[in-house]
């Protein structure tokens, strides 16, 4: 295992200290594992909170800031945060209008967030949760619903913008569910990641193999496939995404090409180019894009594709100013 770390036990705390140094505009509580906006709570604004296992950086800590998250709760590597941790963050960002929990659909995340929501409500904080489930890799396989992957970044951005516009909690939650209903994702891996405490790759792949339908925690995919050019990777991903969410010619979409951690930006641009060509061939309008390593699986090489069907309101909220460590645009 080759990593720039001190020890597997301390990676989360060590990197949170680094985050605090890199981004003094954030308030980072390394002990409690809570990262909140420096000006939290913002009175009169719905608090937007997300969290999940660490190892996906910049998700979620890199999205704390104006126009996106008020708080992030980083768990241990690939392990959801605890109810206490989520409760603590919820309390710190409640500006009196309630708090939205953005939860990725995994058994652990859902249970811990549910417990935290109960604890917060018991303390008089209004909490709504939206559960992101966009991974088409496992559709129909399980009663657990789709896993939450790339759409999480989009939900955080769009709900964050709505909260900044002072929408009330119920409306922000409905919006979150609308984004979730209109987003689908799938990913591939060229290499496995290595969980620091496991010290070895989660799975192994041959030199000419890739995994299709991997999870963002380095879970193996639905099937193994021979390594193919970027053009075919784009087709495999887009076909499955659109099979699950058929779109009519003329519809407008956002395409999000995400790197899994060890994939150079150059390769992601190549995939985007292919995705754009395929969308065009289907008569779909590529209205917005996001390309980069925004939701990693530690040091996995590979990419995921998320397609979001846009409406005017979502597009306007997507375009709204945002100022976070990992996503910044517009005048904030």
């Amino acid at each position, binding site marked *: 295992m080759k990593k720039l770390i001190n020890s*597997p036990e301390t990676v989360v705390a060590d990197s949170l200290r680094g985050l605090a140094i890199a981004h003094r505009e954030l308030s980072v509580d390394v002990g409690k594992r809570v990262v909140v906006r420096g000006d939290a709570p913002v009175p009169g604004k719905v608090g937007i909170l997300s969290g999940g*296992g660490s190892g996906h950086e910049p998700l979620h800590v890199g999205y704390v800031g104006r126009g996106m998250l008020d708080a992030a709760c980083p*768990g*241990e*590597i*690939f*392990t*959801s*945060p*605890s*109810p*206490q*941790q989520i409760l603590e963050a919820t309390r710190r960002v409640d500006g009196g209008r309630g708090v939205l929990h953005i939860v990725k659909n*995994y*058994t*652990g995340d859902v*249970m*811990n967030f549910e*417990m935290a929501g109960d604890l917060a409500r018991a303390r008089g904080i209004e909490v709504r949760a939206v559960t992101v489930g966009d*991974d088409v*890799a*496992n559709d129909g*396989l*399980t*009663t*657990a619903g789709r*896993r939450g992957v790339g759409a999480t970044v989009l939900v955080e951005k769009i709900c964050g913008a709505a909260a900044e516009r002072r929408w009330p909690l119920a409306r922000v939650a409905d919006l979150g569910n609308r984004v979730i209903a209109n987003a689908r994702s799938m990913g591939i891996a060229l290499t496995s990641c290595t*969980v620091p*405490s*496991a010290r070895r790759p*989660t*799975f192994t792949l041959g030199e000419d193999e890739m995994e299709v339908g991997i*999870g963002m*925690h*380095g*879970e*193996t995919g*639905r*099937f193994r496939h021979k390594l193919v050019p970027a053009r075919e990777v784009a087709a495999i991903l887009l076909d499955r995404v659109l099979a699950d969410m058929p779109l009519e010619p003329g519809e407008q979409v956002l395409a999000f090409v995400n790197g899994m951690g060890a994939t150079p930006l150059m390769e992601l641009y190549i995939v985007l180019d292919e995705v754009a060509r395929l969308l065009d061939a289907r008569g779909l309008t590529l209205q917005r894009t996001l390309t980069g390593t925004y939701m990693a699986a530690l040091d996995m090489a590979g990419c995921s594709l998320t397609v979001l069907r846009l409406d005017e309101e979502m597009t306007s909220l997507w375009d709204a100013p945002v100022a976070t460590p990992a996503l910044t645009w517009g005048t904030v």
Partner: protein
Amino acid sequence: MNATPDSEAPVDAAFVRRWLAAATDAVERDAAHLTELDSPIGDADHGTNMRRGFLAARTAVEQEQPQTPGAVLVLVGRTLISTVGGASGPLYGTLMRRAGKELGEEQAVPADRLRDALRAGVDGVAQLGGAAPGDKTMLDALVPALEALSGALDGGEDLARALAAAAAAAREGAQATTPLRARKGRASYLGERSIGHQDPGATSSALLVAAFADTAREGA
């Protein structure tokens, strides 16, 4: 501190603390194996999660010194919930907390009260996680263990023997998860590819039940 020799009420705080020590040792010893089992069908963290939780629980119990078996279990459960995260944290945390609450305030309880408490805990797991035996989860070890424990006690065995039967059933239950296709948890996303791998949570459950059996045997 030894277990009370009173065979009518063998389960006191010391018993649960000895179990915790044995369970923590077992989890430490097998952490790498649990993580390895969590690699092909999970996210390679189950051993790390369990280790972190049980070390924290042991520390919490040393510091707070709860004086009843119920209080020890509740503290273990609370600590697991607040330190493990993931799926196993709330599930094992709920198991321990429910079991502890079920034991009430008493200083020591007889074997059948422990059984009832564990049943309440396992019911809590099923309720929270929505899984049933055969779904390839920890319940595939816990439910057979509970049945074996009940059956042995009903058949007049003492706690040590009954827990030994439970441990054997748990181990077999864990092993029997290998051919199953997962229907709950992270492994269920793999569909047919989850077949052929032993479930990590069922395996850690077997460790925890075995630690009960060891505790009863050594205390006896």
